[in-house]
């Protein structure tokens, strides 16, 4: 009887801990050097992060160490494929590939950031908001020059406040969202501590003299081999950039991303059904009230199953861990109480999330910032004009588009550009974005050295 958990962020680690407290062993695979996911990422040497410290991250890592007898935590192990029968291919940090079969498979794989390609976004000096945050957290590395941050959602304000507090010259925050409506504020007040935290972030920015532009976006980044300016434009209701009212701002570093979406790769490979759900970040794995997917023995929790934030991830992890332990006849009474309590908190967290998405959730007009020459797929150098040409020739499905243009076929397999492609297909064909089929996922989901593949069974390699 084996339980394998993919992802040691708040959701996956909580599953492993709940199981361990019930006396159930698990294997916890994680591609990061330390547990905690992106949200609780420590310094690369394991010390608490210099910026954005959250005591819950240290508590989580401490608890995993305490339960090391029952939690086989494998850091730096990347899952590159899932096969029927809950078989995984894993690549170790040393580059060795191995197969792992799970009786119960928990996917807690987290989110990916949503990128909006604009002219100049391939210049060195442009990073995602999460990327800048990781540099600050794991390496205490922060921008040295004028910094402009753009996009939407809580991460924008969080990263901006963390960087200004560290002495970074953040001159402008460019938020695609408008100021939240009274109804949205009331919804976010369902989680008072989070709402207050948001207000606190905004006050920090104001105190440091950061200009906040709302209903605006960075629509072009200008420079020759390095960033020199960012062009910002006001946006319409669906976030389509206006032609007028633009301004050019001096910048050395631009941070930009437009919220999060669930990473669906492994659930897709496992054959799980998916649903399009804008309140969860777009395509997400379909699951029942007990977090079971449509594939037998496979469960999904945390942001990877639908963007819900860290509190929801922790709650879902505890609930699922308890539920699996119960199924295995190892229920723990203390944990049962905690799981009930976590379950009771979920509706409030969901109400908060709906209000948050109403305020800052991605609106497709912003993708119109790209022009024909804008690089959409960075791995294969596919421009928007290349996509349009293929779409005008009548190729619409992601698969045909990929074969024709190679968009999404490069090293990152479309993780970076997929939402831009999806929305371009929708725009050019008139299909609702929800009806654009999900992109196909190819095995392995990360490039694997040939030497590592050679160690795997030939039957698996043939698929």
């Amino acid at each position, binding site marked *: 009887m084996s339980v394998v958990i993919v992802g040691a962020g708040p959701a996956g680690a909580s599953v492993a801990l709940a199981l361990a407290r019930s006396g159930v062993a698990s294997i916890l695979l994680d591609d990061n050097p330390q547990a905690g996911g992106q949200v609780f990422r420590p310094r690369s040497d394991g010390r608490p992060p210099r910026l954005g410290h959250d005591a819950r991250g240290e508590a989580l890592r401490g608890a995993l160490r305490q339960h090391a007898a029952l939690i086989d935590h494998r850091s730096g192990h990347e899952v590159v494929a899932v096969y029927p029968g809950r078989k995984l291919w894993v690549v170790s940090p040393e580059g060795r590939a191995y197969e792992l079969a799970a009786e119960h498979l928990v996917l807690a794989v987290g989110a990916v950031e949503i990128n909006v390609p604009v002219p100049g976004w391939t210049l060195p000096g442009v990073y995602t908001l999460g990327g800048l945050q990781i540099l600050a957290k794991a390496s205490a590395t922060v921008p040295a020059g004028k910094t402009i941050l753009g996009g939407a959602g809580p991460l924008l304000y969080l990263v901006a406040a963390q960087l200004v507090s560290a002495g970074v010259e953040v001159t402008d925050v460019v938020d695609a969202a408008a100021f939240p409506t009274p109804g949205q504020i009331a919804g976010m007040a369902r989680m008072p501590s989070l709402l207050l935290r948001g207000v606190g972030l905004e006050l920090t920015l104001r105190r440091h003299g950061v200009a906040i532009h709302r209903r605006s976006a960075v629509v072009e980044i200008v420079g020759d081999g390095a960033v020199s300016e960012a062009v910002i434009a006001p946006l319409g209701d669906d976030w389509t950039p206006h032609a007028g009212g633009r301004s050019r701002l001096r910048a050395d570093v631009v941070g930009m991303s437009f919220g999060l979406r669930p990473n669906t790769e492994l659930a897709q490979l496992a054959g799980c059904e998916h649903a399009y759900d804008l309140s969860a970040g777009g395509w997400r794995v379909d699951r029942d009230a007990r977090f079971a997917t449509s594939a037998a023995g496979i469960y999904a929790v945390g942001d990877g199953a639908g963007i819900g934030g860290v509190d929801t991830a922790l709650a879902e992890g505890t609930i699922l861990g308890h539920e699996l332990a119960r199924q295995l006849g190892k229920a723990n009474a203390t944990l049962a109480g905690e799981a009930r309590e976590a379950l009771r908190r979920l509706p409030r967290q969901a109400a908060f999330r709906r209000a948050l998405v109403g305020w800052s959730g991605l609106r497709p007009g912003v993708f119109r910032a790209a022009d024909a020459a804008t*690089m959409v797929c960075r791995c294969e150098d596919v421009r928007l004009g290349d996509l349009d040409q293929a779409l005008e020739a009548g190729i619409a499905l992601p698969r045909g588009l990929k074969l024709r243009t190679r968009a999404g076929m490069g090293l990152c397999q479309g993780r970076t550009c997929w939402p831009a492609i999806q929305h371009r297909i929708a725009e050019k064909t008139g299909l609702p974005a929800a009806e654009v089929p999900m992109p196909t996922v190819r095995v392995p989901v990360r490039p694997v050295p040939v030497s590592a593949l050679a160690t795997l069974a030939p039957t698996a390699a043939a698929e």
Partner: protein
Amino acid sequence: MPAPLFRCLDDSSAARVEVIVDGRSLRLPEGMPLAAALLDNGISTFHRSVRADELRGPLCLMGSCFQCVAVVDGVRNQRTCRLTVRAGMAVELRTPPLPEEAA
């Protein structure tokens, strides 16, 4: 050389070790993510793009986007954000990230 885009807030207590970057010897903090250590040293372009031949640098720093790839110890397409600095590493930047397999 342009001013570095990043600075490190640490007076880093980590031991510095020699890493060869494009034949040049750099002393980088051992155990630090390689991408961050390179950015701290004023290096912002890591690879040359496949078709447009543009110089590109890291984007997501979390192993997802493959924009920070370089040749490390002779192995292509290594994500420098996922590697940590080790003594004697050899890094070649700005080579095209050729896919390892035919698609």
